[in-house]
């Protein structure tokens, strides 16, 4: 283990340790709410970047996996204990990712983006249809004995797991294969790499985590309605956060999740009213948020294409004459 890795481990353990004690503070409801959001998006954005970072495929399937995870719990919470459902949800997300991956990862990037965006919508319609026409219930109330504190700890554990898995992948043949694929797929296949297979494995891992997050979150939100879980904006938020942080380092997305969650918090609180001009509503409050999200996205892509991490690394190189040999 190198010195940098040792420091990384210490920071990670200290960080997770500190976060784990947060629920024990008194009167920290607001802080807990923020921490929960940050943890949730850390899992989603980091697992998204595990796949999209090296492959450069922009997946908008996060909402689909997230929704599937929630659906599994909503369908089964009366029959099966939650930990079993959590595992099943992850599995369902993984299987869905494998199917989508096998069908689409041979396509070029653009088709993949559109397909994944459509996927969430397709499943949402399907679940809605089943709910209203076959089981004939409007929405399901998912009452479990998962307390708010436990929900937070579960997400935190998922975050720790996603970092561990990412760290293991980085050190493995699979991680090396992904870096080669990201550079030049022709060279990858001529070097003996099964590039479609490698991509599918990573997509399955990211699908597993997003579904597990959905499974936990449905016990928090309680009211299961397909419209609130298969929500395209979740996919877009995850993409923006990961890109803002930087996807070429495992801890990159985290540096995007924190500022973006805080910014989003401000947007949510500040823009609750529709925008009016001469007393006429020109943009509804909901659309306004989406517009702001789009503006953020453009600013990030134009001004910090390599994310916060890229900025930090450039700065570190400048501060350390001799050319940034300290990281790697």
């Amino acid at each position: 283990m190198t010195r940098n890795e040792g420091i990384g481990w210490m920071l990670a353990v200290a960080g997770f340790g500190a976060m784990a004690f947060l629920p024990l503070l008194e009167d920290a409801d607001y802080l807990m709410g923020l921490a929960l959001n940050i943890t949730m998006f850390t899992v989603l954005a980091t697992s998204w970047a595990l796949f999209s970072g090296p492959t450069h495929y922009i997946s908008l399937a996060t909402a689909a996996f997230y929704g599937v995870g929630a659906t599994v719990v909503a369908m089964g919470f009366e029959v099966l204990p939650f930990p079993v459902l959590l595992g099943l949800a992850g599995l369902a997300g993984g299987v869905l990712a494998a199917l989508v991956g096998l069908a689409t990862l041979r396509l070029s990037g653009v088709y993949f983006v559109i397909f994944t965006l459509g996927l969430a919508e397709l499943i949402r319609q399907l679940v809605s249809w089943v709910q209203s026409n076959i089981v004939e219930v409007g929405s399901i109330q998912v009452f479990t004995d998962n307390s708010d504190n436990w929900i937070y700890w579960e997400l935190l554990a998922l975050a720790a797991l996603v970092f561990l898995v990412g760290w293991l992948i980085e050190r493995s043949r699979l991680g090396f294969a992904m870096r080669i694929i990201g550079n030049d797929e022709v060279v990858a296949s001529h070097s003996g790499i099964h590039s479609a297979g490698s991509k599918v494995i990573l997509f399955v891992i990211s699908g597993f985590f997003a579904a597990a997050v959905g499974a936990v979150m449905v016990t928090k939100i309680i009211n299961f309605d397909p419209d609130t879980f298969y929500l395209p904006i979740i996919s877009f938020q995850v993409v923006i956060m990961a890109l803002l942080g930087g996807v070429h380092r495992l801890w990159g997305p985290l540096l995007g999740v924190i500022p973006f969650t805080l910014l989003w918090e401000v947007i949510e609180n500040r823009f609750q009213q529709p925008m009016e001009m001469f007393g006429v509503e020109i943009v509804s409050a909901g659309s306004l948020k989406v517009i702001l999200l789009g503006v953020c996205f453009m600013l990030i892509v134009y001004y910090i294409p390599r994310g916060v991490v890229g900025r930090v690394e450039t700065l570190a190189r400048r501060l350390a004459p001799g050319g940034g040999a300290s990281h790697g």
Partner: protein
Amino acid sequence: MAENALLEVQGVSKHFGGLVAVDQISFTLRHNEVLGLIGPNGSGKTTMINLISGALRPTMGDIFMGDRLISERPARFIARLGIARTFQLVRLLPSLSVLENVMAGAVFGHKRLWGREARKYAARLLERVGMGHAIGMPLLALTYIDQKRVELARALAADPDILLLDEWLAGLNATELKLGIDLVQTLRQEGRAIIVVEHVMDAIRSLCDRCIVMNSGAMIAEGSPGQVLADPAVIHAYLGDSHA
């Protein structure tokens, strides 16, 4: 199968729409042989290399490596069987270090090393192609020639039985050419079979045991370098009517 044949190409054609890039080519590559694949630009040499390495599938015909029908298989499978190649326009992996570029050839293919073992092995190969000094250098700082050497080291890292060099000697100056030819000679002495696509006549004469001459996708001559280069059909293909 012909005696002592390592690779056998049987009536292979490749069509791109109406264009016949490779037209019913048959030849064998023997153990320990350097085979020259020559011909004017656009004659189908690189397409032939792409067909053998699995980048393309033949429209007709078969390619065997020993008893394996490799023309039905994807590139990764062919790489694992022990066929490695370089590219006419060098293809390196820009976000990887020089050492990692070479390691890429040694981890997933015919050779499956990992960790320190793979790094040491890659470093040795870089020494071998005369690039030992560049291990710590950024890839973008390398000259074109040095990039070619790194690419060769990556191909060698797979420890291939068959090596396909697509104009690897092109663009070298006289000294470098001498070094390059010597290097390819030593690779043959290690027992590898090599197909070189080449325009440099000095290299063809001193390296190749046999040559195949292609023109407009078809094979127009086969024999020793001396024979084929004196063949009127070959001279005609290269230089046109007035010199024939």
